[in-house]
């Protein structure tokens, strides 16, 4: 069962340059780069010590354990030079996608509200997870049908999304919940939230890993490819 998403590559995407940040301890940067190339764009490696973004058109903050994540996921990464540059650029409208540890980093740095806390089951969970697509207007999700069901891996120990009630209500009210867990919430997230976006729909954070679902050979599906294609559509149109 594959999601209703077109996987045709974006025409004219080849010129698009998407930056992928590597912190010490980042793991899924190679996967994110592969996904970007698969979607037809150019992947540009960004190092945590860089203090500029090398003119990229969008940035992915990938998964992993930045600086070991011993203190709190994303807590140390938010202070790196590249993040200072990223926060500035995101505030000016640069598209940003944070996946897993990247989502945690975006919350820690204040680009997205809330926090990701220890899984309710107290264990790291790696599994293929069903999700529903709640918002198809954000820059990262236009390729999907509203309500589409996706099967994408989750793998994390601290993915339980938490925010105070006012923030959660605001997210819901403004349609900023991107994805929700269905058929079982793997981590105890408030309101089954698996991903959110900022008010402009340009900065997105998710716990599931779309970059691990770009090819049924190495992932459960190719349901994740649409996120990268959606962003390219927007970049090419701009």
């Amino acid at each position: 069962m594959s999601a209703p998403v077109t996987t045709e590559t974006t025409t004219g995407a080849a010129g698009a340059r998407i930056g992928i940040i590597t912190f010490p301890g980042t793991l899924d940067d190679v996967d994110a780069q592969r996904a970007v190339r698969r979607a037809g764009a150019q992947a540009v490696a960004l190092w945590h010590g860089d203090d500029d973004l090398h003119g990229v058109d969008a940035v992915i903050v990938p998964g992993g354990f930045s600086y070991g994540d011993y203190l709190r996921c994303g807590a140390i990464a938010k202070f790196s030079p590249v993040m200072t540059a990223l926060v500035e650029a995101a505030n000016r409208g640069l598209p940003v996608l944070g996946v897993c540890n990247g989502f945690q980093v975006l919350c820690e740095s204040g680009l997205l509200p809330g926090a990701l806390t220890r899984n309710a089951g107290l264990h790291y969970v790696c599994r293929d997870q069903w999700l529903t697509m709640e918002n198809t207007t954000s820059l990262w999700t236009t390729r999907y049908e509203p309500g589409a069901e996706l099967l994408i891996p989750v793998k994390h120990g601290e993915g339980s999304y938490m925010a105070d009630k006012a923030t959660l209500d605001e997210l819901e009210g403004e349609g900023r919940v991107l994805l929700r867990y269905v058929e079982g919430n793997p981590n105890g997230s408030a309101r089954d939230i698996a991903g959110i976006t900022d008010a402009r729909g340009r900065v997105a954070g998710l716990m599931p890993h779309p970059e691990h679902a770009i090819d049924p050979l190495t992932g459960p599906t190719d349901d994740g490819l649409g996120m990268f294609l959606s962003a390219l559509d927007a970049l090419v149109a701009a």
Partner: protein
Amino acid sequence: MSNNPQDPQTSVAASGSSVEAATDGPTAETGTELGTVDTGGRGTDGDGAPTDSVEHARNTPDTAQPYLELGLKEDEYARICEILGRRPTEAELAMYSVMWSEHCSYKSSKVHLKYFGDTTTPEMRQKMLAGIGENAGVVDIGDGWAVTFKLESHNHPSYVEPHEGAATGVGGIVRDIMAMGARPVAVADPLRFGPAEAPDTARVLPGVVGGIGGYGNCLGLPNIGGEVVFDDSYASNPLVNAMCIGVLKSEDLHLAHASGAGNKLVLFGARTGLDGIGGVSVLASETFEGDESGTGRKKLPSVQVGDPFTEKVLIECCLELYRSGLVVGIQDLGGAGLSCATSELASAGDGGMRVDLDEVPLRAQGMTPAEILSSESQERMCAVVQPSDVDAFMKVCAKWDVTATVIGEVTDGDNLEVYAGGELVVDVPPRTVAHEGPVYERPVERPGEQDLIAADNPNTLSRPSTSDELRATMLRMAASPNLASRDWVTSQYDRYVRGNTVLAQPSDSGVLRVDEDSGRGIAVATDCNARYTRLDPYRGARLALAEAYRNVAVTGATPMAVTNCLNFGSPEDPGVMWQFQQAVRGLADGCAELGIPVTGGNVSFYNQTGTKPILPTPVVGVLGTIDDVTRRIPTGIGEEDGETLLLLGN
């Protein structure tokens, strides 16, 4: 100061006293007082106690040494004195005692393991780039790619402290693979525990699984296979075996050696602390008997704590060093720490080596030379670097925030010389430490009870015959922990990271893509049925091989090489030695029949509780290659209507 308006701690903070002062409210009880453990040892008391230098050893031939406490036998100690022509110094004694331990020297197994070499034909060797004796075996898989893989045990540490024991087990095997010049690409973990319902299993199993997951996940290595087996015999002796697989371009193979006088020895990675010093702490406390500064040391737990983040950074740092051609030789620091790394590097080279312990970055104060040499602090590597490359080497380490220090150099002498505080504390022929340890021909005797065991066979044992009996058997099997879903374990492991995992659980073997362009890949499986091996160790080992071989074959891959982890009881028990000998023969003969070589492995003895050994457990790992991973065959039937089911074999 606080951000909490209700600040529940103000009452405590107001008293302003520390926890250890224990004055803020009645203290119930303290485990060990926080922050007051004495890490200082002899170096810090400044009483000028003489370093046990080579010269001092020469002048004090009659000084009694605690060699028995360090696990050396009378005759082994005598041999050390004979090699050196004097009594060993404290530091030398520490080195010999760890390096001549069963774990490092293979003293009981060597004579049997030789059989693997004897039975490996030149034909079987064709694809083998490195074999037994190297850190890990390496095979050529075609298109210029090579794969290195190895199994290692971390059984005893994982019983003492399951989480850290298992974690550092993964860390150790990963460094073995790195030392071959390869990028580690996957791990697998064959595990054995006591009965699933035993209270102690509830302590050990989650700790082990959490440790393997915590470390492997943080390194970004997909976990692509393993086993979980429960049996009474593992009740106080779980088996935690870990496999790592690495990939490299065949021309990048790095073998551990230290050639070229003048080349520098660089220690890099974590600082050296008092971790895992274990038996060697008797040296400090012996000498300082009655001296209160010595007492802190005795209580040291020989536990190592893993730091996967440091190891992840170390991996990336090593790979960049290899790519930049800055490494002449490299060795990981595992069991026996610097003792092992320096003596092995030096004996594999063409000269001697000089090391200055004062240069070693330490984490604890006042460590003695013996302690520095024996420390098993994790996440460290030792490289041999040309003097002209040292600056470039340091630059790469700085980029990755990895501490790196030149601690010595290759000399044109013969000996390994170690200095501390300006004095020569070790002066030994390195081969006598690393390779010329004692070799035992332990007594081997088939236990009489094997006949009793063999008397029970399918013809004499009752089998279910009525439908009720069959039903009962079926239900018993369905309820058996040994046949239950492994999902609780495998869902704690990242199997997706790096994006090359083609098959992992619940498949019969893990399959990884190695080359994205050509689709070339590899498959690995580990197996062992220890109950079969108990019944007949020769056949049991062959069966373990056959099972792993089949598991690789059914994914569409062609099996090509074998590694193993031979877990047995005490080698001093002739019955256990017989099991061991039989298992080695069975595995070697099986490999010869199938035409694939054993490229490496590991022996773990003394797996027993009291005098009761574990079931003999020769875990076998098989590696295969597959030309095109898109043609892999997943496990499972019933995807489509009308599929035909065939039974092959008889």
